[in-house]
């Protein structure tokens, strides 16, 4: 089985008219003035191709890791429905990035090496300056 595409984005959509997949606002970099930061929704998109003699149903797993430490794991069942290509979109809600550095999302089948890897670089910028309210003396009535 081959992973043709593995990407992480803000959202994705399948056009009913054309049955084509679109990916919107790819997350490859996250620059934020505050950490930890919560992403309400993250679309993990993958496309696979299998050989005729390979199984129709495959158990996969998405690992989220930071500097080699696994932060979360999600099992996924993927079915080719007797076709040679399949796609899936996993929406992960409430993912937290707590440190600067490179977060890695990888998709595996069992203990095999990763079929696809996606990295998100998290950068911290200086805090936003606060607006200063300046009081001015009210001018005397005429």
């Amino acid at each position, binding site marked *: 089985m081959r992973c043709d595409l593995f990407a992480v984005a803000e959202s994705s959509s399948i056009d009913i008219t054309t*049955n084509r997949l679109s990916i919107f606002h790819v997350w490859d970099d996250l620059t934020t003035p505050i950490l930890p930061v919560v992403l*309400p929704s993250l679309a993990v998109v993958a496309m696979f191709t299998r050989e005729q003699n390979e199984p129709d149903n495959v158990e996969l797993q998405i690992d989220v890791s930071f500097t080699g430490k696994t*932060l979360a794991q999600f099992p*996924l069942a993927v079915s080719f*429905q007797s*076709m040679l290509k399949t796609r899936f979109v*996993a*929406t*992960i809600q*409430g993912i937290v990035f707590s440190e600067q550095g490179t977060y890695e999302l990888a998709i595996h089948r069992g203990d095999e090496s990763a079929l696809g890897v996606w990295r998100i670089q998290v950068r911290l910028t200086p805090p936003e300056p606060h607006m200063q309210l300046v009081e001015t003396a009210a001018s005397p009535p005429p």
Partner: protein
Amino acid sequence: MSSQHDYDYQNAEAAFVLANTPLFLLRKLRSDPVVRAIAVDLSDDEIMSSLRAAVQQKPTDIREAVLPYLYLVALSIKGKIAPLREAAAIDVPYAEWFKYIGNYLLKSFIPTATVSVLMPKIILPQPSTPSSSTTVKNLKYSKGDSSNAL
């Protein structure tokens, strides 16, 4: 459940009258909101039984002529290969483009699974110290709290 009589087939009928190729008809039906509504409202079995009923007699008007194509396209929108295969194999003597469109839909079918995963617990790596270990925190977000959310 909606019955087929609740839908407005005007767009489908117009597409059928205008269509000079099967793929034109397919494209028009796929973009017809009524076909999408049928795909959402009706189950695979309901669409299949409507399709079987629609192909039994020779059509007497445009609506009856377009209904087999409409149900076939609605099944393709539902995203399961088995019912689509079953529909494409039905003997349809009065719809000459039915087999062509059925085979096209089968050949171009790519299954797509969508899942939604809620992070049940969030594991935060501790600040990097020589003896640091990973801590597990159960984070609860109150409704409408979007602090730190992008």
